[in-house]
């Protein structure tokens, strides 16, 4: 498999940062960074990471099944994560998630028909004091009201359109 030069550079650094012979440690970071580029963790990617880290494909596969941020199927271009854990729950996080489902017309871990947006109800993501919180891809949004949520989604749709043109 070939990756962008940035990812290749990152991989090269990753393979050097752990003690001698401990390249298995690079498995998780490699999968996470590669997934950003490939959109999902495919069988081909698993084999590639296994080869580069000197482990068996099974050792990589079992990791993919464990971590919640690793996805075997592509998510939307924008992955919208709504926290409903306790601090968010107390200030409207669960209602916000219900609103999100209606607004987007999709449920937990589903993707809109155009492939633009996916939704996930997530556990605490470390934004409790500025709840309710939403993370879109890797960007945090704090104190999110349903109105603010709608604005965020409109922004994503605009960005999607611009990309398509």
């Amino acid at each position, binding site marked *: 498999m070939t990756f962008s030069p940035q990812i290749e550079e990152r991989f090269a650094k990753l393979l050097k940062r752990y003690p001698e012979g401990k390249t298995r440690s690079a498995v*998780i970071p490699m999968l996470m960074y590669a997934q950003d580029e490939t959109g999902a963790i495919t069988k081909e990617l698993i084999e590639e990471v296994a080869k580069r880290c000197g482990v068996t494909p099974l*050792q990589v596969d*079992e990791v993919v099944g*464990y*971590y919640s941020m690793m996805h075997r199927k592509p998510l939307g271009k924008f992955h919208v994560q709504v926290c409903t854990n306790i601090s968010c729950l107390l200030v409207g996080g669960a209602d916000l998630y219900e609103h999100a489902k209606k607004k987007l017309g999709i449920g937990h871990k589903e993707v809109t028909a155009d492939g633009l947006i996916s939704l996930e109800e997530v556990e605490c993501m470390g934004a409790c004091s500025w709840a309710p919180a939403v993370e879109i891809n890797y960007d945090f949004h704090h104190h999110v009201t349903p109105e603010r949520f709608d604005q965020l989604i409109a922004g994503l749709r605009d960005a999607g359109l611009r990309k398509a043109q």
Partner: protein
Amino acid sequence: MAKVLYNEPSPLETKVISQRFGLEGSETLDVYLKTKGYEAFRKAKEMTPEAIIEEVKTSSLRGRGGAGFPTGLKWSFVPRTHPKPRVIVVNGDESEPGTCKDRLLIEYDPHQLIEGILIAGLAVDAHVGYIYIRGEYRYLIEKMDRALEEAYARGYLGDNVAGTGFKFDLYTHTGAGAYECGEETALLDSLEGKRGVPRMKPPFPAVAGAWAMPTLLNNVETFSSVPAIIRDGGAAYAALGTPKNGGTRLLCISGHVNKPGVYEVPLGFPMMKAINEIAGGVRGGKKLKAVVPGGSSCPILKAEECDVAMDYDTIAKIGSMMGSGGMVVLDEDTDMVGFALRIMRFYAHESCGWCIPCREGTTWLRKMLQRYYDGHGRKEDIDIIGEVSKNMLGRTFCALGDAAAMPTISIVEKFRDEFEKYLTRETVAV
């Protein structure tokens, strides 16, 4: 010039580790050096490892990750003369619901964290460290990487740290979404590229941790507290807090308050003062119902129990924990059944599945609480929920089982009347 923070600071704070928060460029080495940065490292370089550890013991700093273990004592367990090299691992997994403080320490003051790690390196004769940061915090990993790059470029990491001849390499390592990876031995497995399941102890990480090498593992906030201790002395740091509970800590206040936020307070700060004066009191003029004092795994406190000083020992005396500093405030209208359910949904989702009492216990508790919440509960379920939880206590491989059981037991015992009322659906929804 000031920088916009996530929340306004409070005049009642005692700023030690959050001193640089809000300074323009606080994440840069220049600002760090201008504000006493690396004074502590230079001082530590002139001290023996024993003297550094003694100073940390004097400070009575206790782990800020959850368990509150005395930091100096932990450092003394690492065998400095072991034939295998020592490794430092920083726990930046920050996933205990209610906790959002390590984030700020990395975002606003990464060099303070680096200096704390370097001092730990001198103390246990380690020359390499890994900062494990949860995957959701990608923007922070990038910020930390930039700080590391700057430190390398300016000679504060690498073969000759600050011109002292000390060698230290430091890297970030991303998590990938798993609360369990905050547990120290699961974190080590994750760092080794495996599923994050806990290890049998002993051996403890201090003796055989990452790649079976002696490993010193502490929370981000714990390491970030070290430069101030060495710079100003362990005794001065200890004096900020209460006996055996030295210094200050970041309190993450969330829930039904007017001014939720992260605030630095000395250990022993009165809980009601934190709620009423720092966080502006309960929202909407409502009455306080309960407080989760240190993250979702801590037994809940009823309003009448909250007139306490917040340090590890005082909170332990009233049957709860200071945990990770995540203080969640609940007003009088909070539905406790719904609250207990949400906590259990979390633990059931996050149980790594390695041991049966945790995997099955959390799943059955979740199902029972869900049934209860949906209005199909039976009176006897209240006792069964309590009993199943009690049966998990101390019987799981790691403390995730306890973390799920403890709040549940306390909610069922302290708010039994609400569970009973639920049978006739009189409770207000959250």
